[in-house]
């Protein structure tokens, strides 16, 4: 019978954030969403609103992925699987937008 052994490095993610950290992340997400909706009504921003909203949305995505999905603490292989899929998805989006000459 195999003796119980310690997990290999990265087999499990350790050092989970505390509930307080989760709450702070949630408040940051709500604040960013409020900013997004707020600046949406500022007509003076014109087309400048697009990169601003893109950056804010990416920040929210990153916060959820890093803290709630524990990617910040997890094994590199898990990160690779998710980020690989995400990168391919981004490539598909950009290829399609380029193919149909959107933004050109």
């Amino acid at each position, binding site marked *: 019978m*195999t003796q*119980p*052994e*310690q*997990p*290999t490095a*990265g*087999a*499990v*993610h*350790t050092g*989970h954030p*505390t*509930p307080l950290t*989760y*709450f702070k*992340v*949630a408040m940051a*997400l*709500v604040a960013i*969403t409020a900013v*997004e*909706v707020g600046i*949406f009504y500022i007509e003076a921003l*014109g*087309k400048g*609103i*697009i990169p601003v*909203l*893109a950056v*804010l*949305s990416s920040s*929210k*995505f990153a916060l*959820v*992925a890093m*803290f*709630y*999905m524990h990617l910040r603490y997890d*094994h590199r*292989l*898990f990160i690779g*699987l*998710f*980020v*690989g*899929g*995400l990168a*391919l*998805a*981004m490539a*598909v*989006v950009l290829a*399609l*937008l380029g193919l*149909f000459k*959107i933004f050109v």
Partner: protein
Amino acid sequence: MAHATTVPHGEEHEETTTGLSHRKLLIWAFLGSDCMFFGSLIATYMVYRGKSLVGPFPEDVFSIPVTSVSTFVLLMSSMSMVLAYSALVRGSIKGFRIWILSTAVLGMTFLAFQTFEFRDFANYEVHLDCARVEAEDADYLEGLTDFETTFLPRCAAVDEEFSEQHGLTLKTNLFGTTFFTLTGFHGAHVTLGVIWLLSLFFYSFRGGVTPERSLDVDLAALYWHFVDVVWIVIFTVVYLFGVFPGF
């Protein structure tokens, strides 16, 4: 043969060639592939944006305040999901049950918002205050969308108010087709997530959810957070960019 040993945080550790749980690898591979699935749907929506020949268009039907509230609900559900997982690894089954049920309820609330929104779009009506149109009220006319403006000549035959139903469905135009396909598939993901969460909630009463088997909850949590991050992108790209005239 794989078997489990107890490790820090009460997580299940399987003896595999990588030292990583195959189930966790599988869920990450699935989420990576789902990124491509939603990426294609989002790209299709963006490619066909502004190509619809008939209305209604995004600026006619979208209500940013209502969608902001449903976005807030989904973000809060992600927080309650991590709190459910956190409670479980700390050994609090009661805390787990409270938070996972909260997550499922918030998920159902989001679905209720989506149902309300879809129903609202399907019953969309063009309303024109013909008295103000006849009086050439500049403020009123400037506030009309392009689609509403096409109905201005119809005011000639009406004294007070013009009203006509032009519901948005999958078949109405390219906007309807791409919008309902994208958000419909997201809604289906949320529905599956709610069923998964409720299954874990009820399973916990049969002793099936324990700190030693927290991986079961971790997998559901990863799926749920993924549904949340997809919505973060949809909210910005479809809703906020959708009604922005310069985009």
